[in-house]
């Protein structure tokens, strides 16, 4: 296993304290994370801009959304982030089994999100609502679809992180990669935190 660099301050416990300021994960991954956040910011703004031109039609279509599934999905992602945070804490303390277990649990939550999303989409399709329906549903499918893509990528990242979480990983450069992956997953969570009320609640 290549040792890229050993970070003596690899520990930055969640409870805060005497740690030196450090970038979570590698500096490079923030290019990806900030970039994606900016793109989604643009997508959110685009949605609201076009909504302002057809508020009534958007509201009518919005009423057809299934808020229960949306809510369940929100809770799943929040919980998965909790698990990921726990995994990082465990891996820092070399509690590899617990760490991988937490990553697996987070993966399961994410898989749950994907399943519920599939159910939600098929509900829409069988009701005759598709991406080429009205403008509201165009945004609904495109925004949730692009987000879903990120969830799928995130699942891959979590699986990869679990794979490279071996004994003693806390003191290697690999830990930075795992932290970066965790940050990516939290990004997926926070994007949904904005997207859910934006699509389902804003009237």
């Amino acid at each position, binding site marked *: 296993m290549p040792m890229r660099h050993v970070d003596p301050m690899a520990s930055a416990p969640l409870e805060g304290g005497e740690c030196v300021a450090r970038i979570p994960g590698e500096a490079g991954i923030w290019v990806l994370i900030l970039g994606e956040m900016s793109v989604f910011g643009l997508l959110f703004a685009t949605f609201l801009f076009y909504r302002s031109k057809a508020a009534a039609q958007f509201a009518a279509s919005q009423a057809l959304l299934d808020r229960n599934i949306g809510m369940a999905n929100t809770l799943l992602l929040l919980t998965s982030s909790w698990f990921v945070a726990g995994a990082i804490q465990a891996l820092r303390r070399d509690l590899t089994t617990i760490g991988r277990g937490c990553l697996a649990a987070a993966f399961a939550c994410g898989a749950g999100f994907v399943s519920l999303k599939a159910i939600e989409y098929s509900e829409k399709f069988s009701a005759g609502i598709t991406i080429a329906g009205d403008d509201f549903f165009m945004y609904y499918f495109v925004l949730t679809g692009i987000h879903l893509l990120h969830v799928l990528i995130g699942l891959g990242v979590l699986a990869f992180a679990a794979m490279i979480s071996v004994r003693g990983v806390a003191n290697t450069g690999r830990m930075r990669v795992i932290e970066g992956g965790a940050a990516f997953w939290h990004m997926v969570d926070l994007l949904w935190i904005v997207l859910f*009320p934006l699509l389902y609640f*804003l009237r």
Partner: protein
Amino acid sequence: MKAILGGLATPIWLLLVAATAASWLLGTEQLFGVTAEAVRASGISVLLLAFAKVRLVVRYFMEVRHAPLMLKLILDGWIVIVCGTLLGLYLGT
């Protein structure tokens, strides 16, 4: 195990869930009434709550609390700019 559960992750998660429940109530229960202004107020509250939640995730889950000032500023900047823009667009309806 205690080290993991004893950290801030769990209280933050509880806070996030509570905020989500609050959003639900604001978004569905017409807490402020049924007038146009009331609906508008609900919308604003829902948006603000969402970005408050985002900040919690960024600071505590992503551990940006321990990050260099530059990263903190950039992320807070994103929160302020996006939230502000969305509020502006929403109110301009």
